[in-house]
């Protein structure tokens, strides 16, 4: 089931949570909504589910306009961050809930519901736990039960709101891999919300980067990392440095030093670069010069943050572990790769 979101606007008490958002989700795709808190990612997910209704705009499930349909009519599987399992029901009853509340003629017999619950417990790798209560399960197990419950109604799409947000790091990683495998096996169109870029990039086919109620970029992990379309995406995904530069006659200048060449027009620009795209050059050569303030070792590399005269933001550079660096050292670096954004753009 492909989903098309068309010019969705959502206001809460006149405060806009989403401005004119459009998005195409392909059938069978696993897609992540990624952004900081307040970016509108959860609101978008809830709008697709029918747990909220848009102020304006439309949502299509296939060719079917679902915008004004109730959450029950949309037939979606929704998984909540805090599981929302029914505590007074056994695991099997939780999973069977969606089938048991169907109107009489569509309701399978209770033996069939029971069988289906067992089957789903196998699928989420919790066989034999049907008679337990949710409080008797670990966080990771609860989330898998919540997923089985959502899958029981054979949903047209699977929507997950920060599904691993309440779990600890190790369980998160395991569940992430497991969810990817499950998706590849069942083929549900799946949308999940996360604020964890590593999770988004590792799990999703495509990532939707959101900020302040707008979609900044939609693309694969490579797209958003290597070809960020906005300063926000550049700085939100991975590490980054920003420097105000001036372009004159194809030369990029900072503090009187020419850092490189560009085809962009003359004027003021912001230059974004990754810490690993900076190389050390001898003092006196054109580059960004400064004095090291903080040096730290991380795995196989070394990071140094240095103060540039006249700038309050430090520049971070990644160095090979073999290069010694200590606070107080003078440093001169030159960017190997960079992206320029017009000064006035967001």
């Amino acid at each position, binding site marked *: 089931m492909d989903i098309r979101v068309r010019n969705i606007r959502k206001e809460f008490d006149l405060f806009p949570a989403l401005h004119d958002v459009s998005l195409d989700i392909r059938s069978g795709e696993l897609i992540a909504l990624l952004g900081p808190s307040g970016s509108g990612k959860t609101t978008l997910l809830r709008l697709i*589910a*029918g*747990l909220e209704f848009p102020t304006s705009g439309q949502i299509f499930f296939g060719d079917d306009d679902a915008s004004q349909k109730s*959450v*029950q009519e949309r*037939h*979606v*599987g*929704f998984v*909540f961050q*805090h*599981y*929302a*399992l*029914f*505590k*007074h029901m056994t695991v099997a009853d939780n999973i069977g*809930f*969606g089938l048991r*509340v*169907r109107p009489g003629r569509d309701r399978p017999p209770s033996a069939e519901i029971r069988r289906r619950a067992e089957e789903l417990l196998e699928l989420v790798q919790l066989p034999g736990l049907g008679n337990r*209560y949710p*409080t008797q399960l670990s966080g990771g197990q609860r989330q898998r039960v*919540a997923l089985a*419950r*959502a899958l*029981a*109604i054979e949903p047209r799409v699977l929507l997950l709101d920060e599904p691993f947000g309440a779990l600890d790091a190790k369980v998160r990683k395991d569940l992430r891999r497991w969810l990817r495998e499950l998706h590849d096996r069942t083929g549900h169109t799946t949308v999940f919300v996360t604020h964890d870029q590593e999770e988004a990039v590792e799990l999703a086919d495509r990532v939707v980067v959101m900020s302040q109620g707008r979609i900044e970029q939609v693309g694969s992990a490579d797209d958003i990392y290597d070809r960020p379309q906005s300063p926000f995406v550049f700085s939100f995904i991975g590490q980054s440095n920003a420097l105000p530069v001036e372009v004159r006659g194809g030369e990029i200048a900072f503090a009187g030093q020419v850092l490189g060449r560009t085809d962009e027009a003359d004027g003021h620009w912001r230059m974004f670069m990754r810490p690993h795209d900076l190389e050390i050059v001898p003092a006196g050569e054109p580059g960004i010069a400064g004095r090291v303030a903080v040096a730290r070792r991380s795995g196989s590399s070394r990071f140094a943050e240095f103060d540039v005269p006249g700038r309050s933001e430090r520049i971070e550079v990644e160095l090979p572990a073999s290069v010694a660096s200590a606070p107080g050292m003078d440093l001169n670096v030159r960017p190997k790769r960079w992206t320029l954004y017009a000064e006035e753009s967001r």
Partner: protein
Amino acid sequence: MALDATLQPSASAAVRSAPQRPVTTEAPWVRRALITLALVFLALVLFLPLVAVFVEALRNGVSSYLSAITEPDALQAMRLTLTIAAIAVPLNLVFGVAAAWAIAKFEFRGKALLITVIDLPFSVSPVIAGFVFILLFGTGGSLQPLAQWLGIQIVFALPGMVLATTFVTLPFVARELIPLMQEQGTGDEEAALSLGAGGWRTFFLVTLPNVKWALLYGVLLCNARAMGEFGAVAVISGKIRGETNTMPLHVEILYNEYAFSAAFAVATLLALLALLTLLLKTVLEWRFAGDIAATRRGH
């Protein structure tokens, strides 16, 4: 110093003689004094009067005790008390659940006002509550024509007493449910709806089971108050002996007629009702402790 392996004997003795108790615990004499104070207070204010009721009731022997509580007027008072509670408690059960549900699960204008209004019966004297209904439904009252048109006698009759009792006991169920339901939020309901359940099914299969223990407490407290209510009912009943007398009113009438041991005999029934309520609450709490903790914890 204490980590040193070669501790000197004198130093280790000093460590051992220091008071070893959790930091939040007071010295033994403070603890004993506080516990004694609490026990003496409880004995004086709660236990002694309770014992006195039973002692006074049985002063003239068991047979006069039994005749006092099986006398026609006493039986009628018991019937009336139970009837009023049987109507007022279900009314407040429905209202309390509906109000708590609205307040906890939805955002609407005037919500703060509604919460305040629910508490009103706690802050208004029950006597005033009784008077309000007399003013409304009594002779010349603004709602008297309505009562007349319906052909119901409200003041000095059962309907008025039910109204007054309902008013006085209105907050109990709602007050018990609101904080719990607010804490639980709407996550479970949203899950049920997304799984295809309608509003009523969601309410009966998810919302209600999540609050059943709080609801039971609320009903127990509401019932205890409904049976024991004096002020509001005294005003609106007119205290017609054998007709509009409830148990608390009957106790007062007997007392005013200097039938002390009969008054205390009926009073023991009220005290027993209260003890039964407490017992029921304690047994439920003990029996379903894990279950209650689970629903209290919310998510």
